[in-house]
């Protein structure tokens, strides 16, 4: 078998874990950078059409998102919740389940953390309080995922619609909780009590980077490790890659399904908690950053590989932080970032297809 056919795993989940051949890495890099370049050119044309110099725009994006010390700190801080979300989605997608309800789970986790954190720090040592807040946020998000999980495991109800609906419902519920239950009585602004800055997760060294980044990195690395190196992860992957093989091998598919939803939602809840306890300090009414929707394509592009996801989440953060800044400086609405991300995604997906076809014709 030649090296060319080896590289064909481009479409399959790369579970071989081995050190890929150098040519393989080279190809991967080309197949990632090439489409990104193409995407930048297409997006550049849109910028030109609205009268903005794309080079200036990309320059500002890079400068703020990647090159300026303060900017890169912001980029790294933004990564923390995204990493948790990506970790949760990796678990779900690798196990073949489309959890599209990340945003609802995220918000409920956030509200739980925001409601419990400020109260707990008054009675418990700070670290224990935060830990308990994290636990509560995880538990609530897990509980929220139980409906789609049970429906999927025992009734075969498609999880795409149930999770979508639960996200609509979760967003409303989070709002109700903020406005009616956990309202901060000391302000007229509808928001939860604020966790004092000194009680939040410490920042790293002398920077503004939240230590939530480390937690996020840990989470995604642990998920990567669990999914690739442990018996449990392997079971989930078998369910995802070939459910019939899972039955044949005697795995309890319904229980695993529930576990997958719980983990995935729990991590999304943690993402909310880490954003609140690390950065925001409270939850305001009608707050919904909709991170999960943006992370779904990213996880797909990373081929559900935790390590690669870190890279893509970093890219998304650079685009988001740098894009906000560049948009401000050039008078482009920051919505352009959405356009850019979407074009990058479609180009990468196309590249993967072309790569796959090319390999097939080589093989034949």
């Amino acid at each position, binding site marked *: 078998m030649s090296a060319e056919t080896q590289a064909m795993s481009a479409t399959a989940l790369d579970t071989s874990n081995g050190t890929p051949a150098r040519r393989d890495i080279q190809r991967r890099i080309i197949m990632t950078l090439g489409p990104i370049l193409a995407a930048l050119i297409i997006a550049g044309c849109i910028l030109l059409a609205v009268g903005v110099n794309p080079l200036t725009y990309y320059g500002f994006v890079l400068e*703020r998102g990647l090159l*300026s010390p*303060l*900017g890169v700190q*912001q980029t790294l*801080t*933004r990564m923390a919740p995204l990493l948790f979300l990506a970790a949760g989605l990796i678990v779900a997608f690798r196990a073949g389940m489309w959890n599209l309800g990340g945003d609802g789970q995220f918000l409920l986790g956030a509200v739980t953390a925001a409601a419990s954190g400020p109260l707990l720090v008054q009675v418990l040592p700070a670290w224990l309080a935060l830990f308990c807040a994290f636990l509560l946020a995880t538990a609530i998000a897990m509980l929220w995922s139980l409906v789609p999980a049970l429906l999927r495991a025992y009734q075969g109800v498609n999880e795409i619609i149930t999770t979508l609906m639960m996200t609509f419902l979760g*967003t*409303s519920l989070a*709002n109700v909780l903020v*406005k009616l239950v956990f309202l901060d009585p*000391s*302000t*007229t*602004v*509808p*928001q939860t009590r*604020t966790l004092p*800055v000194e009680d939040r997760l410490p920042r790293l060294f002398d920077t*503004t980077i939240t230590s939530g980044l480390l937690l996020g990195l840990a989470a995604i690395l642990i998920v990567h490790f669990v999914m690739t190196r442990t018996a449990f992860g392997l079971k989930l992957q078998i369910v995802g890659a070939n459910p019939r093989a899972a039955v044949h091998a005697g795995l309890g598919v319904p229980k695993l399904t529930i576990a997958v939803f719980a983990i995935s939602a729990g991590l999304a809840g943690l993402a909310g908690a880490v*954003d609140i306890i690390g*950065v*925001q*300090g*409270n939850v*305001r*009414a*009608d*707050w*919904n*950053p909709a991170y999960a929707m943006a992370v779904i394509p990213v996880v797909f592009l990373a081929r559900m590989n935790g390590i690669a996801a870190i890279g893509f989440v970093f890219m998304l953060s650079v685009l988001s*932080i740098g894009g*906000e*800044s560049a*948009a*401000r400086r050039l008078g482009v*609405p*920051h*919505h352009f970032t959405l356009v850019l991300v979407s074009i990058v995604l479609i180009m990468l997906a196309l590249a993967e297809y072309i790569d796959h076809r090319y390999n097939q014709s080589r093989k034949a």
Partner: protein
Amino acid sequence: ADVKSIAILTPEEGTDYGWNQQGVDAAKAAAAATGVEVVVAQGLGYGDVRPTLRELAEEGASLLIAHASGYNTSAPEIANELKVPVAIVDTPSALKKGLVADYTLSGHEGAYLAGRLAAKMTRSKAVGIVVSGEPPSWNSQSAGFAQGVKAENPDVKVTYAVIGPAAYSDAAGGKRVTESVIASGADIIFGQGNGSSFGMLQAVETTKAADGGKVYFIDVIGDKTPIDKGFLLSSVVWNITPVYTAMINDLKADTFGTKSYSIGLKDDSVKLLKTAAIPDNVWTEVQALREDVISGKIKVEPVFEATAVRALMTNVSE
């Protein structure tokens, strides 16, 4: 202290003839008046603005105006962290000398006058309030408006409807709900909303009142005259320029952060917009009422809680 430039941060583009535009325009005007530079960061959304706050501080802004109630947690934090003065809204308790100033903008007095005006002008003896959400600054105006209506004529019905949670961009919802309120008998609509307020305006423009006549719209905060098609009765216009000018001056005089700023009828930082649709005699009466409010003869208390606001509305089961 030396003030070279100020920066204003707004959640949406400053082209909304409303909250964001008034903030941006005021910042520009105040900067021009005091001879400082202004940096505008608009359309930042309701998410985390710490990155932008830090960036603007890094760029050397002497004052960061965080022009959204959603920014009043993050801005003081950045002020403490980077020792750069910030101005926030709706949080009088957060004052900190040299660092944090608050400007609580409540147009309740203006809304009260708008209520009096509406009660005088309604033909059907029914007016409506449509909002796209229930933030405190809108609540106080809804309440002020309802109080004004009742004070003018207790027989005028006031109906109140919220489009929906986070329905800021729900223009179709704005139109739909406004049409329903008009159908319930209202011929004057007091509308508050961002993108959705254009839907309300559209409803007013395209729906006839019960008597077949025009329905009028009373806007808030901004001045939609440039895009009016003859349905704008008035607006509770906020002029934030004096507030920002005072801030800059306080900053120069090292008295920043020692007081809250507000707007009111007195200095015309809140005023009712005069349009051709208001007959002169009515306008004169309203102006007289304005004097009474300023002189304290009429007291208008701000109401910020949504529940209290709803309690002020006409209860049909009575």
